[in-house]
């Protein structure tokens, strides 16, 4: 690897490693797996950096790689979280309260639903960036986010 390329990788790592780690942690729900993901993302970046066409920012591209890696890993796992559906109220047994808290509802979101909330509220990405990371249109992002919020709003105290 040339010195300039090495410098670029170092800069990218120092700038975006936290974002990648947090994003992969929000999807994988495990710190060790997230660290593995961070490593894999940069290995993937080094191997495929020539294919980067500059249509989006490096950050967006790295987060897209992170997303692909995480979902590939998640598909291999048997226990997927139960998606928030219409039967949620009937199937859920609250531990301490009769009313379901927002946190319980959030923990029951599917990976796709949770990552929308994460990317918007925690990582503060714009709709444009979210669309690029998720590989969908901006209108689709708007609709999906709206639906998730509508669902979560029911559990707001």
């Amino acid at each position, binding site marked *: 690897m040339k010195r300039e390329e090495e410098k670029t990788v170092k800069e990218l790592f120092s700038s975006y490693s936290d974002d990648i780690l*947090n994003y992969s*942690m*929000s999807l994988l*729900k*495990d*710190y*060790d797996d*997230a660290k593995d993901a961070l490593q894999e993302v940069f290995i993937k970046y080094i191997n495929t950096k020539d294919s980067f066409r500059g249509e989006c920012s490096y950050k967006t591209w790295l987060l897209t790689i992170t997303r692909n890696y995480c979902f590939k890993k998640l598909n291999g796992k048997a226990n997927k979280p139960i998606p928030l559906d219409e039967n949620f109220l009937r199937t859920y047994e609250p531990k301490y309260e009769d009313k379901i808290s*927002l*946190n319980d509802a*959030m923990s029951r979101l599917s990976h796709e639903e949770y990552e929308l*909330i*994460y990317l*918007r*509220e*925690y990582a503060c990405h*714009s*709709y444009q960036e979210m669309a690029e990371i998720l590989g969908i249109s901006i209108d689709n992002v*708007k609709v999906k*986010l*709206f639906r998730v*919020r*509508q669902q*979560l*709003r029911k559990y*707001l105290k």
Partner: protein
Amino acid sequence: MKHYDYELNLFIDGELEEGNGEELFLHLAECNECRNTLADLLLLKEKSKMYCSENINQLKQKPSSSKSFYKFGFYAASVAAVFLLFFLFSRNPKDTFTTQKQVRVDTVFVQKGIPVTQNQLTNTNSLTPGKKELIQSSQQEYLRYVMNLRTEKFTEADKLKFDYGSIQ
């Protein structure tokens, strides 16, 4: 009356197109339900952010599964080592046992096919005083002596070395 839930979602994210803003504010001034929706969405936004933040902090602070695995492995190995040592030192060695090429009688190794007396004679250091003379005087007497000694513990190893029928 038309409500503006979808537009409110865009508004709280700062993604509402410029032309729609005025219409939304005029509606908000009149519609109590939409004002409640806006308040809910702002609260939801704040709580969602807090949840994400707490979730990530919890995951970072949680002890890693690999560390727990190694910790458990260390304790399991320690217990196994203690048991192994206990069995090793508490168990008495076998009096007699045979291997493929050798026969071990007490602590004396005897090669197959060689009369026991000859072997015993070669290992005279293991004999108690008096035995050596006894062996040298008569093989038959020695064999009877050995048989008398081992009336209670006559093993497979003894059968290999002695022609039991001829002695009797």
